[in-house]
């Protein structure tokens, strides 16, 4: 009997360590999505500039998820083709670009409604959370792929309407590094951010 009692912690330890993907991950994701939407559509946000909204959205996302993970996966093996300074610059510029695209995409649209589906456990280290986003009478299906990393569950891909963001960027970056280098990529990203600003000015 005593041995049985002594065995309890071992059984508990094994059970806990092999727990399937925590269902709370969907709640965490939902919380972040809602907070990011709130940062754009919340009370008082209408007066904020696009830049201020971007700062809020980025802080919201980074408070829960490490955005480096999805960007590093998109870069793939091309990472080793850049020096440390270029790597850091690329991470920062891509983050800026993505957050800017998100805020710009939401600008002037009605507040989206997001519905998360059941969490799908791919392995004990990978889960997928489907979602349905309704905005301006249209429905978009978005799948979030999360991996269990040392830093916790992290988003490593987003698949919107069957198009993987990571695969799409990987294709572009593979093409880029066949002819160009890290510095070219940094320059291209900077150009793209400036070009986006010009486009906004023209629209205004």
């Amino acid at each position, binding site marked *: 009997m005593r041995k049985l009692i002594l065995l309890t912690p071992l059984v508990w330890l094994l059970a806990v360590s092999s727990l399937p993907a925590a269902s709370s991950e969907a709640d965490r994701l939902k919380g972040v999505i809602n907070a990011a939407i709130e940062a754009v559509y919340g009370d008082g946000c209408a007066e904020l500039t696009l830049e201020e909204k971007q700062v809020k959205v980025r802080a919201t996302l980074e408070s829960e998820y490490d955005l480096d993970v999805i960007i590093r996966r998109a870069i793939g093996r091309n990472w080793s083709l850049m020096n440390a300074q270029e790597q850091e610059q690329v991470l920062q510029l891509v983050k800026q670009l993505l957050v800017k695209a998100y805020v710009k995409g939401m600008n002037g649209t009605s507040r989206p409604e997001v519905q998360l589906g059941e969490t799908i456990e791919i392995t004990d280290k990978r889960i997928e959370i489907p979602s349905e986003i309704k905005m301006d009478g249209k429905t978009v299906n978005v799948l979030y792929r999360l991996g269990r*990393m040392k830093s916790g569950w992290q988003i490593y891909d987003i698949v919107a309407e069957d198009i993987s963001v990571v695969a799409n960027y990987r294709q572009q970056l593979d093409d880029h590094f066949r002819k160009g280098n890290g510095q070219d990529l940094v320059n291209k990203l900077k150009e793209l951010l400036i070009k986006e600003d010009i486009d906004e000015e023209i629209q205004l």
Partner: protein
Amino acid sequence: MKKYNSNHIFAALLLCACGITSSLHAEDDFLLEENLYGEQLEIGPAISDPLEFINRYTFEFNDFVYLNLVEPLAKGYQAVTPDPVEASATRFFNNLKYPVRLAGNLLQGRLDGAWVETGRFAINSTIGVLGLFTPADKMSGFEPIPKEDIGQAFGSWGLGEGPYLILPLLGPSNLRDLGGMLGDRAVNPLDEPFSAIDDWSWEWPIALAVTEFTAASPSLLERYKRLKGTAIDPYGSLKDGYTQFRRAAIQE
């Protein structure tokens, strides 16, 4: 000297086991960064693009046309068309594409899909006033299903994509989907050059095509600009986006 009984030894072993187990799990339970970042993505075979040089020129041409001609057209159309009318026009042209969806389903042996599409066409064309409305959406068994076309059917038969193509004005495609598109036109009684209507003058098909294009342009342009907006290489982004989308449609 202190004596140890079997329970003490068992407890000590158990603690050791717990320690080893937890440290092993600490390594095993996580995705390693080098694995996650370095692994090949499951995106199927590489996209064949031997005509990249020509495609890129066509892409630039299309981009110019989309942003300088189609965008003003789309904005003008949206400005003068109330939202409900715009939505009805889109539904009307979607309804007319029924023969394409029917053929796509039949060629893949999807009889249930063919049945649903036929039911939807019948309901939307009658109760829905020529497809301006879609009452079938709310009828059990006739809710919208993924759209099928002949290119998808070719893909489901195992026909390869062939080289990636950018078609003037029409945008991304590949050799298989170009063949599928010709098939789509052949089964659609309203599309030229295979139109089943002999006695209409040449202005009608052109007017129909222009109206259809105008009605579809706002949403097409929105998708195009969204994909292009954050792209490091818009050409590569569109090529990959189109191919991923088509492969997923065929797999489904």
